[in-house]
């Protein structure tokens, strides 16, 4: 065949969506969810090249993301219980031999749409749209400078995230996986003149690459074991095949885990996320809190059938999640930068989700992802509003009583709402989702993980404490604030641009005409998304409210998760609702008898116990921080001083504040040795291989020549010696021949 027609056909395929007809007409346009963000990204690029100095790119992006959201909503109605595969066009598909199994690779650009996909895409695109709207105002000081770059990055991110979630095979997932990595790299490094920002971006990409390595190898293994990397075929293959004891099959979940931990910032690969806060706040909210970091959870949920057959892997996931939650919480307690605190809380909450996955409740994990997406986005966006208004000030020691500052009341109260949700205050959405996880932790078949339940409760208390540490310090108490020194991280002309962008210098942050500082009140484009997201955060709890009020087991999230691969053989699910053993087709030894009510925690049914204990922990944490950070703020410093005072306890404070030195540890144990080795190798390459061996061999002929050099010093006899010697030798040779001939 000839290349050109193929090119043509491929472009057509891209344009008009799926080539093969499907039952539901909506599916024909499922590709739009990918295509629209891509188009907006390209348009942003064009805007950048055409030096467009308006908010056009923001409009484009918001429109595109909204369109994607609408597409997903329509699909929501269209997709039934059975997953649908929509083939957009062939990407990598190639067979050899007879083309049978193990004789071909097929990884095409097709979409695997089931309820889980829809569920994920719903909040991804929804939040994406809202946050883009938020960003359209937040980034306005960069109009004409980085504005298009920002929205281009957001568009690319959403495109990649759509590939990740909707991709029909693991290679598509890998594509999205790397794509979101790229987007996060570009957006963290948005202020690319700041060395920290660049370093953070690099760190994020590289640490993620370590995880991607695991993912890539897992792909190879999966193909090697099951002969395909496409979900639909893969599930069949797994159903067909008995749980094999091959090391290859055993290794798959561990490698996948590595990838998930990298992307979702779990131990040992969590270090990039706090630094990623160098990026603009909307990015932190969208990518590093709400959506991208949940990709790891999605991966494991999607690949759940491969995990359930491997209890050790499940336990490992649970433990890593629990420990990460604990560690991040302890660090979060001791930080002073608001965004960093939220970052560590994100890590901690993600730890909860992995704990949930590990103990088998993919439903709980997904539910927590869902709720967390909203309230964490809310928190970040409020923090961003504060930062935007107070010229980049994020130090919770320098901000206080914002709820009384004009223009910041709404923001403050929404932030406090977010704090309640994050603290999993009783009967908030997060409370239910966390409850699901902890209950499953206590009731898991695998006794090894029960202790994680208790850890989870401790973390709940810590979370409540540090959440309200921020809440009380920043939003309550006496009104007192200092502006930050820098203006969202870019150079000082930023605000002049901002002033051009929207008039009223009075309402505008920055040391205006007469020295003193005016907070810069957010306008509608920031307020509206905040309100909508807050509503979303509240509504996120709706399914559980229904469950709680009129004991209706039909939990929307659960149905979403249940009708997907994430539910195949989810062992501990069975305790929650009695009607869904059927939904677990090949439960690897998950017997109903073992499930649910058998477990008693402190003599109570797991649900009630966890509910009470959780509320207790939460309220305790809130009260402590109420005292320390609102009623008697001096006490906090006094406590710190006393702790610092005694050698026995000093390490707690120092460790927590220095983030337990994990970064330094990595630097010393991995980066430094590697650099030393690299330098040694470079020296070897330069001196030994090149200068030594190669040039040495090259110098050999010259050296040999130098032996005879004295003969040719220009004196006649030198040449004469050669001549005479040659003559003599020739003569000798002739004579020798002649004498030999003589007899």
């Amino acid at each position: 065949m000839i290349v050109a027609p193929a090119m043509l056909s491929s472009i057509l395929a891209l344009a008009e969506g799926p080539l093969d007809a499907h039952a539901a007409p909506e599916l024909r346009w499922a590709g739009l969810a990918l295509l629209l963000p891509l188009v907006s990204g390209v348009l942003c690029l064009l805007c950048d090249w055409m030096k467009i100095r308006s908010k056009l790119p923001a409009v484009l992006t918001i429109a595109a993301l909204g369109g994607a959201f609408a597409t997903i909503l329509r699909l929501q109605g269209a997709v039934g219980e059975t997953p649908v595969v929509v083939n957009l066009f062939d990407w990598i598909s190639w067979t050899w031999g007879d083309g049978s199994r193990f004789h071909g690779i097929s990884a095409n650009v097709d979409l695997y749409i089931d309820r889980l996909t829809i569920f994920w895409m719903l909040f991804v695109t929804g939040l994406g749209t809202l946050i883009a709207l938020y960003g359209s105002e937040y980034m306005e000081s960069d109009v004409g400078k980085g504005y298009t770059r920002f929205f281009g990055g957001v568009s690319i991110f959403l495109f990649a995230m759509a590939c990740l979630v909707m991709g029909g095979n693991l290679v598509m997932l890998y594509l999205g996986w790397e794509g979101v990595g790229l987007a996060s790299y570009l957006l963290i490094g948005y202020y690319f003149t700041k060395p920290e920002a660049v370093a953070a971006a690099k760190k994020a990409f590289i640490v993620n690459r370590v995880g991607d390595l695991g993912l890539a190898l897992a792909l190879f293994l999966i193909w090697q074991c099951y002969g395909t990397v496409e979900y639909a075929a893969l599930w069949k293959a797994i159903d067909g095949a008995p749980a094999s004891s091959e090391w290859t099959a055993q290794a798959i979940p561990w490698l996948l885990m590595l990838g998930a931990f990298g992307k979702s910032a779990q131990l040992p690969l969590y270090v990039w996320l706090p630094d990623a806060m160098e990026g603009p706040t909307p990015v932190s909210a969208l990518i590093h809190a709400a959506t991208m970091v949940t990709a790891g959870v999605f991966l494991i949920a999607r690949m759940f059938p491969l995990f359930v057959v491997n209890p050790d892997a499940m336990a490992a996931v649970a433990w890593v999640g629990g420990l990460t939650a604990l560690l991040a919480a302890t660090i979060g307690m001791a930080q002073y930068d608001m965004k960093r605190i939220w970052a560590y809380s994100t890590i901690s909450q993600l730890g909860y989700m992995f704990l949930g996955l590990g103990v088998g409740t993919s439903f709980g994990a997904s539910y927590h992802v869902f709720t967390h997406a909203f309230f964490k986005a809310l928190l970040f966006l409020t923090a961003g509003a504060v930062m935007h208004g107070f010229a980049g000030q994020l130090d919770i020691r320098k901000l206080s009583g914002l709820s009384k500052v004009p223009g910041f009341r709404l923001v403050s109260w929404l932030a406090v709402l977010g704090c309640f949700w994050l603290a999993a205050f009783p009967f908030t959405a997060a409370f239910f989702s966390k409850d699901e996880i902890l209950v499953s932790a206590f009731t898991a078949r695998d006794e090894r993980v029960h202790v994680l339940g208790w850890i989870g409760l401790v973390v709940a208390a810590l979370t409540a404490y540090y959440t309200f540490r921020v809440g009380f310090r920043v939003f309550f108490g006496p009104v007192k604030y200092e502006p930050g020194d820098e203006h969202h991280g870019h150079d000082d002309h930023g605000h002049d641009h901002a002033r051009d962008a929207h008039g009223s210098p009075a309402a505008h942050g920055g040391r205006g005409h007469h020295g003193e500082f005016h907070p810069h009140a957010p306008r509608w484009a920031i307020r509206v998304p905040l309100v909508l997201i807050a509503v979303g955060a509240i509504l996120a709890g709706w399914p559980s409210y229904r469950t709680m009020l009129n004991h209706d087991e039909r939990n929307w999230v659960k149905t979403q998760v249940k009708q997907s691969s994430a539910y195949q053989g989810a062992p501990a699910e069975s305790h929650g609702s009695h009607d869904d053993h059927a939904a677990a087709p090949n439960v690897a030894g998950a017997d109903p008898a073992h499930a649910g009510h058998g477990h008693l925690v402190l003599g109570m049914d797991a649900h009630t116990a966890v509910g009470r204990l959780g509320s207790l922990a939460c309220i305790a944490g809130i009260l402590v921080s109420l005292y320390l950070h609102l009623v008697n703020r001096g006490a906090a410093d006094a406590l710190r001083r006393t702790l610092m005072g005694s050698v026995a306890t000093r390490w707690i404070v120092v460790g927590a504040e220095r983030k337990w030195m994990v970064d330094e540890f990595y630097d010393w144990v991995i980066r430094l040795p590697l650099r030393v080795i690299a330098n040694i190798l470079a020296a070897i390459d330069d001196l030994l291989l090149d200068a030594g061996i190669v040039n040495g061999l090259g110098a050999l002929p010259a050296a040999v020549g130098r032996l005879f050099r004295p003969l040719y010093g220009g004196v006649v006899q030198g040449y004469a010696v050669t001549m005479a010697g040659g003559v003599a030798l020739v003569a000798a040779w002739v004579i020798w021949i002649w004498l030999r001939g003589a007899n």
Partner: protein
Amino acid sequence: MIPPLLYAASAICAVGLFLLLRQPTGKARLGATILGLAGLAWLLVQGVQASGALGFDPRVAIMSLTVAMATAAAVRVITTTRPVFAALYFVLVVVAGAVAFLVMGAEFMAFSLIIVYAGAILITYMFVLMLAQQAPDAGGPSVAYDRVSREPAAAVLCGFVLLASLASVVDDVRTTKQPAAMVEARANAAAWNRMRGMPELVKERITVELAAAGKDPMGWSPAGGLEVAQDGRTAMMPVTLADGTRHETVLRASDLPVNSTSLGWELVTSYPGSLELAGVILLMAMLGAVVLARRQTDMAEDDRRAAAGLPRVNVEDADLAGDRT
């Protein structure tokens, strides 16, 4: 087959030469000389034996002495530290060579050698030495570069290899030759042929023979050609005497033309072209010598001008003039 002992002797000679080249003095010098002479003697003895000649032949003794003398003189030529002596020793070499020529029956060449070399060439050398001799420096009666010989080892090595390979040729003299008698016969035949080309000489010889035979040497006329005998030693020539009687005249080898005669005859009959060529070469040499001599005078002129700070006349020497200062 390889004559190893020849090589051994050559090696001894080479060692002796090497030692002498390093300008030894006193006993060392004596020892080196003796070593060299011993090697030489051994070489010569082997040579004589190789020729397989039996019995004593005075010519061989003379020849051996001559060779020894020539060799010794040659060695002195290259070991003496004063060019004048070298030239004089070379005269000795030439003389010895001439003696060798004589012994081997090349009388004409012997004398012409003496004349040309000792008489002409060596005198030229002497003149040049006088023209271009440097005043002896502090090191003694000679200049430094004459006292120290240059890389004698390499030189002697080359020389040895050459000597050894050339010396192996002596074997050739016997092993690859047909009997000397046959050679002589052919040679005599050639000589008689040459003689046929010289009617005057033949007439003279026949007259002498007739007189010796008591016949009338006058008024005879040849009655046939000159028939050479089988062995080539004698030749018959029938003549009709004045009284009409026939007489077979017998000519002997002693009647053959002498060396110079036949050499001249050979030269003009067989090698006329080469002869012309030699003449041309000599002419060219003469012209070249003249040109060089003129340049020398110009250069002297230039030196004077340069000394006086005037521009040079010979522009093509300008660059070389640079590195002279």
